[in-house]
Every structure is written in C-alpha cells, then in structure tokens.
C-alpha cells in the first residue's frame, strides 16, 4: 500500500517526491522511464572530437540522420534532436498522441523527463511575477534555498541579479571565453551609457556546477552538454531520483519506489521496480 502515487519522473514529479520523502509517507512513482543510451561517453572534448574523430557523424548526425530531421519534419529543439538525446522524446508522440494547432507540444517518457534536455537556466519568481498569487515571495525563499543546495547553481551578483533572484548559496560563476570576457568588460566600462539605452548585461544563473557537489563533479569545459546526456555537471532530475532511491535502500523504510512500466500503444503493464 502506498500513501502517495506520483505519475511521471520529470522535474515536478521528482521534487514532489523530494519533499514527500522527508515525511513518513510511502511513495510510489509510476514512470515509463526510458533510459539514456548506454555505452562509452563522448570525449575528451567537443573540439577534439570535431577535428579528429572519424566516427563523429554517428553522434552529431546519427545513424538514422536524427539531427537532420528538422530539414523535413516538425520543429524540435536542437538539443532534443541530437542523436544521444533522442531517448528523451522517443515514442512519446506515438504512445501519447496530442493534437495541437499553432504550437508544437513536446513530451517525454524518459527517466527524469524533458529536463534531461533542458538548457539549465534558472530564475526565481519576482514579487512582480507573484502579484495576485495566494502566497508571497518571502514564503518561497526557504524552498529556493533548498533547491539551490540540491541542484547546485552557479552565478553571481551583477546587473542581472534582479531577474534571477537571491545569490545566497550560489557556486562561483563559470569562467568566460575571450569574446564573452571582452563583451562584459566593454559593458562594465560604459555601464551608464548602456543602461540609459535599456541594455543590461550580466552572467547567467545556471544549474551547471563550478564546484563538485556530492557525487557530481564540476564542469570541465568539455562543451559536450549539447551532445551527451546526463553529464555530471549539468543538473537533471535523475540525480535527485537516484539519490532518493539509494538513500531509501539504506534506510529501514524505502523512501521512494519507482515502478518502470512496459508501454505499448494499447496497454501499460508493470515491469520492474527500481
């Protein structure tokens, strides 16, 4: 018997489980759980691969020309059509067809959901965003702090800080390449003039580690995050789920059970429990 059933392992489901795991509730998460491709990780870095690897077509274009599908098919973001990221949307439309007019819905049946291929940009709501909501920004503050320490967010306090939210608990910002450094330095020299014209430049707030966090290692600037899923320095909900399951195994009462289902177009059937 379970007290709480969460359907889907995406960001929302994962953090529902994250919060509920601290209670005495028995939680079941139901998920199709398509896994990321197994095998050797790409490396050592993007430029080396591009300049010397004769097999690069297989992971930049794909054996079935996955990366070229936008040439003839509906729009899919570049990251989602990269060959090693195709598991994120694989079969989702066939198993859960959606009709849409004027926009292209994207859904995922992968373990960790669509966030396997997110861009890692993080923003807090502002008081202005929350005007009319039944809760205030101050009530969210503690939850944001918990997320920052769970996910690992890098950034700094600069002219864009207002848009991103609190800087408490952030990891240091990532180093910039030469062009970005020059742009930022130019902006800082003429800040007043830029701001008069409505331009503000700053560093992004990213769920991208600049320092090691628990078992995850800091970004090594290999520039492969667009091509290699579940890279340790870029947060995906899988890291939180794996940890909840691992911690549960070590405790008397499993905090979280995840049932992976076999899915066909006509039925869902239970397959295994992680």
């Amino acid at each position: 018997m379970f007290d709480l059933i969460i359907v889907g392992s995406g960001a929302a489901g994962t953090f529902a489980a994250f919060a509920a795991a601290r209670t005495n509730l028995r939680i079941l998460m139901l998920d199709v759980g398509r896994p990321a491709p197994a095998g050797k990780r790409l490396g050592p870095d993007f430029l080396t691969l591009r300049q010397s690897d004769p097999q690069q077509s297989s992971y930049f274009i794909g054996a079935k020309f996955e990366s070229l599908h936008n040439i003839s098919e509906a729009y899919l973001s570049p990251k989602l059509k990269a060959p090693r990221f195709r598991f994120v949307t694989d079969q989702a439309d066939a198993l859960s067809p959606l009709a849409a007019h004027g926009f292209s819905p994207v859904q995922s049946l992968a373990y960790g959901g669509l966030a396997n291929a997110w861009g890692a940009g993080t923003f807090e709501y502002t008081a202005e965003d929350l005007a009319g909501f039944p809760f205030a920004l101050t009530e969210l503050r503690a939850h944001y702090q918990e997320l920052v320490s769970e996910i690992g967010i890098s950034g700094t306090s600069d002219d864009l800080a207002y848009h991103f939210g609190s800087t408490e608990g952030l990891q240091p910002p990532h180093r910039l390449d030469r062009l970005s450094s020059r742009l930022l330095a130019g902006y800082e020299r003429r800040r007043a003039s830029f701001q008069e014209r409505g331009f503000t430049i700053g560093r992004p707030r990213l769920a991208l580690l600049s320092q090691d966090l628990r078992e995850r290692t800091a970004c090594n600037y290999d520039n492969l995050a667009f091509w290699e899923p579940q890279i340790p320095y870029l947060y995906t909900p899988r890291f939180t789920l794996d940890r909840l399951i691992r911690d549960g195994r070590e405790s008397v009462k499993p905090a979280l059970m995840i049932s992976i289902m076999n899915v066909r177009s006509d039925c869902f059937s239970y397959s295994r429990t992680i």
Partner: protein
Amino acid sequence: MTSQTLRDESNTPALADEGRFLGANLFGATDINAGVLANYVNAVTVIVLSGKTTANSHATGAETRGHSLWRRVVDRALAERLDVQGLELVLRRKWPQNPLSQRAHILAFLLETDAVTPSYQRFINIHRSRVAAYLTLLWYAASTFGHYLRGLLLLKRLERRVTPHV
C-alpha cells in the same frame, strides 16, 4: 530524373552522382569519400524522397502550385547539372524547405562531420589573422550576391521551360 523515379533503389548510383555534383558545385568539394556519398544517398532517400517531406497543411493553393513548379525546376536543374548555387539561394528565400535546399543542408552537414578529409577545413574558419578573416568574408559576400543574380536568371529560364504549354 524526377523525385518519383529516384525512390527506386536502382537509382542509388544516380543519387551518388548527384551528391558528387552538388558537393563540387555548392561547396567546391571534389574529394567526397564513399562513406559521405553513401550517407547522402540514404539521407536524401529518407528525408527528401520519402514522400513525407515539406508537407505544409497551412500552404495556400497558390503556394502549393508554386511548390509544384519549383519541384520540377529543381528536378530539371539537377538532371541537366546546371549551376545550382545561385538557384538554391533564390529558392531558399521563396520556399525554405525546397528539395534543393534540403539536399544542400544534408550534404553540408555530412561534409562538415567528415573531419578526416580536407572537406572539413572548408567549413571551419581557421584564419588566425583578423584581416584575412574579414577579406574572406567580403569575398564570399560579393560572390554570393553574384550567384544570387545568376540564380534569379536561371530560375526564370527554368520556370518557362518546365511550365506546361496551354
């Protein structure tokens, strides 16, 4: 050589030959290796000739008629091995997913990921000198404009030739 007849597997040599022609004409690549050509044949078959390409439910009747005309223009230009560089530029502005631009995109990506042949160097800016980089950029801008004008003329000529006489 029409899109219909190219779906036949026996047309693989014709598609490979088309790949060689487009590589040389569009990208100055005369050294395309067998692997890239095989991928080109497969990709064009899967993406361009599969019958599911460029379907646009929002296209108006006039657009659909235009697409049909331009499809015949592309077939004719490829069959006669005309200078398609300018034609591709002009058609891309009128119909971004035309069959010639699709072929050009496919071949560009395949050549770009063929790191072990000299083709790769054509897609990477290896100029360390800023002056050389700007001169190259200027040369390509002027050259592209020239090709565009030639493409306009070629398109007009081909449209007259492929339009059925009433």
